[in-house]
């Protein structure tokens, strides 16, 4: 009997940063007209029935009075988000025989997802990239998705990507009356060509020491702490970092874009991310928003900064809990979030750049203004940053305000592109050196590896011992200096660390000597 009909369409759901296939089964039968969605839908999925009905009618098709049951299988995985609108609409239309697929259309092999508006437009959704990647891994060949998500997935090879703007367009495609033009494959290299660096080093006046420190930090992947009076340009310096880091590889870009995709941080119509992310949470941020979590185990700022820069301005103002929680991602490059309903692992390998004032009022050591803080207040302020966190920051640099006459000077400083070349060369040396190791940059050297890879010339060794003696440095500072000296030597294309390299590296521990003793 043609009164009880089945239809199946294929879609994808997201768990963590991975997609999983969802089979949308539609059963249309007689009875009290209505639509029921089952298979652990959340509220936004359940609301789908109203959007689907309106979109179907506004696409010139009829919503027949049928009792419709929509099942999202597997039924034990929670489904969320409006991305099931499109597959449900197509399933319902097919189930009601309002849509008769052409023989060329293979419902078993075409993944559909997209949100519908009431007038039948297809709107972009979050998580398109992980869904398409997982669809390819499952062996599906084509995908119909919102046109605004097309560029995001255009780099993925071996998939026929069909961008749809309206439900009517999708219907015509399935009926075979008007094929959707597949999205042209974009190579990642082409995308990189378009990258525009907004914060350029050439716009920074003065700050020679900080510029150099930034270059060293980028070359070795070192974490960095800037201490300076308010308005000395700490934030501006930090913003330049993504521009001088080497461009992301396709793998890195996919990893990062995935996280941004599920968090809804990608602008509609944007492609894979080609510039390293720069994440700058406010100091009032909670542990959960920083690390990730919530009922759905969402990624936090540390994961949004994956392969990029996490900038924490006013470091001592962050809650102690938030700062302590940073230690695991800093160490492992990954956060595991476990909630009752969800467990997720998000990559979070980022460069930490922190900035702080030297004292609560901000003017301790300023050449232009007088600090109003008592020594006790300063000590309390600095004590908010724990030793273990400081241990993970190789470079500490003091930044003083630039005099106005220097800001107005018209001399152009070196641009990010020039610095990036040197950084890239140093990174290449490191990759070559560590090709047999599980790490790839100097910042990741363990104490054991430090001994293997950081050979110093005899006078460099003598200088380092003299510096430790004269400046009362700890053993820990010693290994940090050695690590940084390795990067300075790499920037100099030197295999053996010379005394000049060590001497420069010592300058990046000046705060050890002064503030934290």
């Amino acid at each position, binding site marked *: 009997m043609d009164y009880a009909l089945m239809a199946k369409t294929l879609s994808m759901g997201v768990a963590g940063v991975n997609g999983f296939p969802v089979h949308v089964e539609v059963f249309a039968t007689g009875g009290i007209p209505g639509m029921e969605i089952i298979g652990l839908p959340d509220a936004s999925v359940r609301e789908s029935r109203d959007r689907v009905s309106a979109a179907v009618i506004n696409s010139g098709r009829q919503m027949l009075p049928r009792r419709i049951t929509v099942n999202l299988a597997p039924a034990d995985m929670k489904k969320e988000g409006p991305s099931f609108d499109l597959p449900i609409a197509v399933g319902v239309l097919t189930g009601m025989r309002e849509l008769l697929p052409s023989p060329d259309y293979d419902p078993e092999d075409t993944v559909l997802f997209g949100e519908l508006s009431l007038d039948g437009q297809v709107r972009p959704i979050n998580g398109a990239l992980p869904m398409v990647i997982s669809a390819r891994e499952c062996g599906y060949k084509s995908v119909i998705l919102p046109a605004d998500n097309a560029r995001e997935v255009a780099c993925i090879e071996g998939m026929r990507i069909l961008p749809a703007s309206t439900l009517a367009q999708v219907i015509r495609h399935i009926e075979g009356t008007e094929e959707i033009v597949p999205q042209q494959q974009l190579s990642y290299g082409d995308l990189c060509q378009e990258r525009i660096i907004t914060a350029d080093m050439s716009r920074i006046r*003065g*700050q*020679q*020491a900080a*510029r*150099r420190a930034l270059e060293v930090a980028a070359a070795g992947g070192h974490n960095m702490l800037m201490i300076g*009076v308010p308005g000395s340009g700490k934030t501006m310096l930090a913003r330049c970092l993504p521009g001088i880091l080497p461009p992301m590889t396709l793998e890195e870009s996919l990893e990062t874009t995935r996280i941004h995709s599920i968090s809804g941080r990608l602008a509609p119509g944007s492609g894979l991310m080609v510039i390293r992310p720069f994440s700058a949470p406010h100091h009032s941020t909670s542990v959960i928003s920083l690390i990730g979590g919530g009922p759905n185990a969402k990624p936090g700022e540390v994961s949004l900064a994956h392969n990029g820069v996490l900038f924490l301005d006013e470091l001592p103002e962050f809650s102690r809990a938030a700062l302590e929680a940073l230690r695991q991602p800093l160490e492992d490059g990954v956060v595991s979030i476990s909630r009752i309903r969800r467990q997720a692992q998000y990559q979070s390998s980022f460069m930490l750049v922190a900035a702080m004032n*030297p004292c609560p009022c901000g003017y*301790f*050591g*300023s*050449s232009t203004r*007088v*600090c109003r*803080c*008592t*020594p*006790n207040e300063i000590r309390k302020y600095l004590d908010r940053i724990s030793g273990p966190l400081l241990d993970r920051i190789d470079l500490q640099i*003091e*930044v*003083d305000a*630039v005099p106005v006459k*220097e800001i107005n000077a018209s001399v152009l400083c070196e641009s990010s592109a020039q610095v990036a070349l040197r950084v890239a060369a140093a990174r290449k040396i490191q990759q070559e050196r560590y090709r047999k190791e599980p790490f790839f940059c100097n910042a990741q050297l363990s104490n054991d590896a430090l001994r293997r890879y950081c050979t110093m010339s005899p006078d460099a060794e003598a*200088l380092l011992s*003299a*510096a430790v003696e*004269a*400046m009362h440095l700890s053993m820990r500072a010693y290994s940090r200096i050695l690590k940084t000296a390795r990067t*300075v030597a790499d*920037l100099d294309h030197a295999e053996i660390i010379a*005394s*000049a*390299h*060590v*001497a*420069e590296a*010592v*300058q990046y521990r*000046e705060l050890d*000597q*002064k503030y934290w003793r």
Partner: protein
Amino acid sequence: MATEKTVFDAWLAGAELPYDLLIPLLHEFSGADAVFSAWKKREEHPLFKAVPPACRKRMNETASEESLRGYRDLAQTHGIQSVTILEEAFPHCLRDLPDPPGVLFFRGNQQVLKAEKPAAMVGSRSASWNGLKAAERIAEGLSRAGVTVISGLALGIDAASHKGCLKGGSPTLAVMGGGLDKVYPPQNEGLMNDILKAGGLLISEYAPGVRPSSYHFPYRNRIISGLADAVILMEAKVRSGSMTTVGHALRQGKEVFAYPGDPVSPLSEANRLLLREGARYFTEAKDVLEDMNWLDNLSYVGQNIECSPKTVPDDPSERAVYLALEKGDLGFDELIAATGLTSSALMSTLTVMQIRKTVEILPGKRYQLVRK
């Protein structure tokens, strides 16, 4: 027994009577123990009638066996001794104060009070880097010439002066604003122990167990200046505790020295004011010694520790940095402009010079030549 006496002295001092009542009381009864027994017997004495109610309350409260035992324990644990104005051991220079302390408590070596060259060094708790360094240097120079440096064991200039004096080898004297059983501020506990170890002395007019209050400090400053022959102001603002010490010194007819300091910094505005008004100008310990006629130690003059011959480094980049810094302290960017070195070369050079102790770094990433 010495401690028994200290217990009654502590009881009397703990009442915090005004000096014009405390001293007549001591004279009348010739000792705190006699005052105590008379008070205990509730003797009718005209002087007792004059005791203000707040002091009366304290005297009654602390007259119990238990609180007397408390004083005894504190005095014994910390080795606190006491002297009243009636005794010969009471410092003569303090007898002449318009408002002398009736009782003084000691901890440490009392011989320090007999020092021939006592100089007080005072200044701000939040002094500039250079001010602190200067205080330490000058205290060291004075101490080498046998001067006893007197200060208040506060943070900043006080602590730097005590430290410098310890370095120079002479004992130092700290006048505290609370009971001698506790260090205030607590950060200076290590310094206090060093002072005692080096044969120095702590003094207070407050009984053991008395917590320092804000009004104690300006009042105790009259003792700092009273004990000294010269009062040296290192760095202070016009409205500051250090200036009350200077005020006491002027009324007591002591010699006042003011360090020139930074001519534009608000931190040394009081120095400029005093110098304008005719305070003695000095930049080295030797200047103070000369003005005070304390230069009996000829070997010290021969040493002439204050200025050493100029040593311009041979290495070209070190030389360039040295010459640039000779005119004053510079920031990193200014050094680059002055020397023409690249940032990385300049950083290396600065490290080498820091190790050689020719250059030091100031807060705010400014560099200066180390004064030899």
